[in-house]
């Protein structure tokens, strides 16, 4: 928004963003298109798009000489490709939920516009046409940091519906909480018989260098022709546009704020790699598709939102647990240090978590212990510290990622009794825990 003064001036002259105007500033006359005011900067500076395409900001007073010029108002329209169908190609559903992958600048409002229309998508990524025929569902348009369990449930429902008629499903989301979404879908979608591929982009698709194009094409390739029946994330494997990795939904984490290859498989190899040209190489065993299967597909409907993810750190106040007990939380996952250690005998006994964890467990809360090292397995038996924590009834979660443990606990408590949920927390269900820590894993 422009400053009140400018908004009034524009209103008086009947001028709105998109109009062609002529303005005299400091004795020099400029012509151009009035642009919407960017979020930041000086709201008293009018942003003008000059005929050479450049925008400049000019401070003008309430009595500035501004006139509206004739000519058509500039509107933005994204080109679309025709949505043709090709005989013999498999059916793939694309479920759009928002995020950078669907974002482009809206020059009318200055905000972000979602690339939702199937035609727009095919225009931007023409190679999709040779991979599959598509049904595109615009489920929602929100950033992933704004998503909660209700959105996960909605996505799970839509994915199950699409899976019943498609070979595979591609879900586009924001990347920030993509690994929570993938974990949620992994647990919620029971007995799936095809790939559910979650993808997104780290660079918006309004730039020629966006990772969205290859991510989408590789995801469509996995959905259309990979012989897997799992939920996973398909994103750039390296900084190069050469291949993507399809990583198990419970074994993947965003490990970098901005890089294309931010999503890394943790404690497990990716399920498959897929090249830009569409060649798929399987790198891990997993559930495969059963022809004519899929009838047992169901969605776990419940979710317990009163589960917390806490981080232990030096000088952290264990009373935080008492807060959650008082708020009637049903579960908590604690990110300990190293193999799952938490202070039990500090010099200042106020910083010992032991009693607080015991109180939590005794109050009926399911407490799971994971590690903030992200990589590796927790183990309570090596040091006294761990043995004492385990003695409270807190559950050590093997090599499960903290975020995955959180989501799993929410799903378990939403669909099972407490005892059963506690029993299942550290048992492998969909590949989130493995018995062996393989040698070949890199950090």
């Amino acid at each position, binding site marked *: 928004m422009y400053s009140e003064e400018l908004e009034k001036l524009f209103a008086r002259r009947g001028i709105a963003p998109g109009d062609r105007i002529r303005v005299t500033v*400091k004795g*020099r006359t*400029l012509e151009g298109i009035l*642009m919407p005011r*960017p979020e*930041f*900067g*000086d709201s008293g*500076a009018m*942003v003008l798009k*000059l*005929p*050479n*395409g*450049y*925008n*400049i*900001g*000019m*401070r003008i007073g309430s009595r500035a000489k501004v006139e509206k010029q004739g000519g058509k108002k*500039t509107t*933005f*329209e*994204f*080109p679309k490709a025709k949505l043709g169908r090709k005989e013999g190609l498999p059916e793939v559903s694309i479920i759009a939920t928002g995020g950078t992958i669907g974002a*482009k*600048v809206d*020059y009318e409002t200055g905000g972000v516009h979602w690339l939702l229309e199937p035609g727009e998508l095919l*225009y*931007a990524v023409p190679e999709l046409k040779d991979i599959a025929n598509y049904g595109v569902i615009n489920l929602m348009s929100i950033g992933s940091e704004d998503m909660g369990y209700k959105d996960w449930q909605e996505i799970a429902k839509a994915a199950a519906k699409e899976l019943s008629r498609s070979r595979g499903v591609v879900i586009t989301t924001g990347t920030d909480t993509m690994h929570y979404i993938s974990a949620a879908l992994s647990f919620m979608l029971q007995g799936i018989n095809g790939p559910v591929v979650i993808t997104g982009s*780290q*660079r918006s*698709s*309004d*730039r*020629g*260098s*966006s990772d969205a*194009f*290859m991510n989408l094409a590789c995801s469509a390739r996995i959905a259309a022709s990979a012989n897997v029946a799992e939920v996973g994330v398909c994103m750039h494997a*390296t*900084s*190069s*546009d*050469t291949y993507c990795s399809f990583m198990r939904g419970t074994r993947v984490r965003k490990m970098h*704020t*901005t*890089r*294309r290859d931010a999503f890394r498989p943790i404690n497990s190899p990716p399920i498959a790699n897929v090249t*830009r040209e569409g060649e798929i190489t399987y790198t891990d065993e997993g559930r495969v598709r059963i022809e004519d299967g899929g009838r047992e597909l169901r969605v776990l409907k419940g979710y317990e939102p009163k589960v917390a993810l806490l981080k232990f750190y030096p000088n952290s106040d264990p009373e935080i647990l008492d807060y959650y007990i008082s708020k009637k939380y049903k579960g908590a996952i604690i990110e300990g240090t190293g193999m799952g250690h938490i202070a039990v005998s500090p010099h200042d006994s106020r910083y010992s978590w032991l009693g607080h964890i015991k109180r939590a467990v005794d109050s009926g809360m399911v407490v799971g212990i994971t590690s903030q090292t992200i990589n590796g397995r927790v183990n309570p038996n090596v040091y006294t510290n761990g043995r004492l924590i385990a003695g409270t009834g807190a559950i050590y979660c093997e090599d499960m990622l903290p975020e995955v443990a959180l989501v799993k606990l929410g799903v378990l408590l939403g669909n099972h009794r407490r005892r059963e949920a506690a029993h299942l927390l550290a048992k492998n269900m969909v590949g989130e825990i493995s018995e062996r820590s393989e040698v070949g894993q890199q950090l």
Partner: protein
Amino acid sequence: MLGAEDYRRLGFKCGLEVHQRLATRTKLFCGCDAQLPNDISVAEVERRQRAVAGELGSIDQSAAFETSKGRKFVYNAFAKTTCLVELDEEPPHEPNREALDIAMQIVASLRASAPDELEVMRKEVVDGSDTSGFQRTMLVGYDGSIEVAGRQVGIPTIFLEEESAGIEYNDSGVAVYNLDRLGVPLMEIDTNPDLRTPEEAKAAAAALGLMLRLTGKVQRGIGSIRQDVNVSIREGARVEIKGFQDLDTMDTVIANEVERQLHLVEIRNELLKRKAKVHAARTDVTSVFGETKARIVAKSISGDGTVMAAKLEGFAGMLGTEVNTGRRLGSEISDYAKLAGLGGIIHSDEDLPGYGFSEKEIGALRNLLDIGARDAFILVAGGRDACIRALDAACARAMLALEGVPKETRGVDQKTLVTTFLRPLPGGERMYPETDVRPVVMDAGMLESAKGRAVDAESVSRRLKSTIGNRQLEEQMLWSQHLGRFLEIVEKTGADGGVVAATLLEKMTQLRRSGVNVGAIGDDAMLRVFSEYGKGNITKAAIEEILKREPKDGADVERIIKSEKLERLRGRELELAIKEAGAEGGREERLRRIMSKHRLNVDGDELGAALK
């Protein structure tokens, strides 16, 4: 040679875009080193880019053209000069304040206005020279001017932008770029398109170059300044010429481009008169050449290749018509086919038997394509897909011959100084806001304080003329890194500009060559030497004697003058020296005798006068 009046009559339009790298410590949008040392390559990434819809929705023509080439880009990343920002793996940081300051100095020097708020834009580039697919750029000044040979040339726009990546290797499938250069602050200064002659264009480029150098804040050396020239004539079209290696030949290249446009207009007029037409239909003529002796075709079809041809109705003789010395319309068409990935085309105005084609083959081809006496044909050979692309591109270019001059970006052939096709001219629709960088709100004082640092190239030229009095030295000083030092010395010491210039430009080089560490000579020492000379305390010859001894400061200079007895002999001392030398021999002989003894202490002219 055309004169000013001829250019006016032809509707000659010419404007410059001068690009200059700034000498800042870091790059424009990140903390990487901007001074391009010989950095170590640490990583290599491979990327693809595609044309995306711009702000107004449509895909830019030149962007689509690059995408259609389906190329792979490889980027070399370096230890100190690249980070994740250059790799397009991290958003840009805040714009570099040092660069903004220099930009304002340049804006002030060109007497231009600055916006109150700078809006960073993305200018789409899909040739791969930018990892992001766009160049970040902002308009920092408008409505300025510069004096060129006594006339004010308008500077409508001044930009501060990111330098592109330097190309290392390029073929039809892959382009390799080095990222060390990407993101170095770069100024672009545009002139109005009203330069009246090629010579004036050259003078304007020189004036802008001088102004930039005088700021003392710009990079020097090969590639640090580049001039693009936009040229057209009334019946022609705008052509952007890139890649001038030196200013000396700029006027010749422009004149040759005017010649090319004139010939293309003549060719168009003739084609229109003949009602010429391009048949875009491709005909597969491989069967004609089953047993051909023409090696160029035989080689192509020996594998899995094809030969394809198209008819150009009414084009007979025109393909062979020259547009520049040694360049014909056929060469222009061939350039387009080459860009599509083939070696070029063969056409009917060429010496076909000379290629090894038999009369029978030529006859069969003419039959197959229905070529009459007034028609021409073009032929391509190679892989089927490449043939289709190349022939389509060639036909598209042939069609443009009916309109005259195509709008293009062209390079310079350094040998022949004619322009050569690079790509179609980019359209205007490839600009959109850089949403990752906040607008830069200019505080009121920024441009005002820059005005105090404004440089005026024209007044400096005049100053050199009045103080040096030797055209060659003036010219040399104008382009020299010692210019700032020279002006300071002349100003502060009152020493003769000619002597100062000759010392800085010639003597210092000689001394360095002879092993003197001239870098050790302090600024203060230099000022003192010329101050002593200006006061008449030492002779011109003594200057070198002092500098040889690498004085660090003024005190050093004083000490050297004393210990080496370099004081100038004058008045009674001079008379004494003349007496001592005796009266034997003629005047010349006496002069030589005195000089051989007192070379460093006696001014030759003064002695000459005293001996009269």
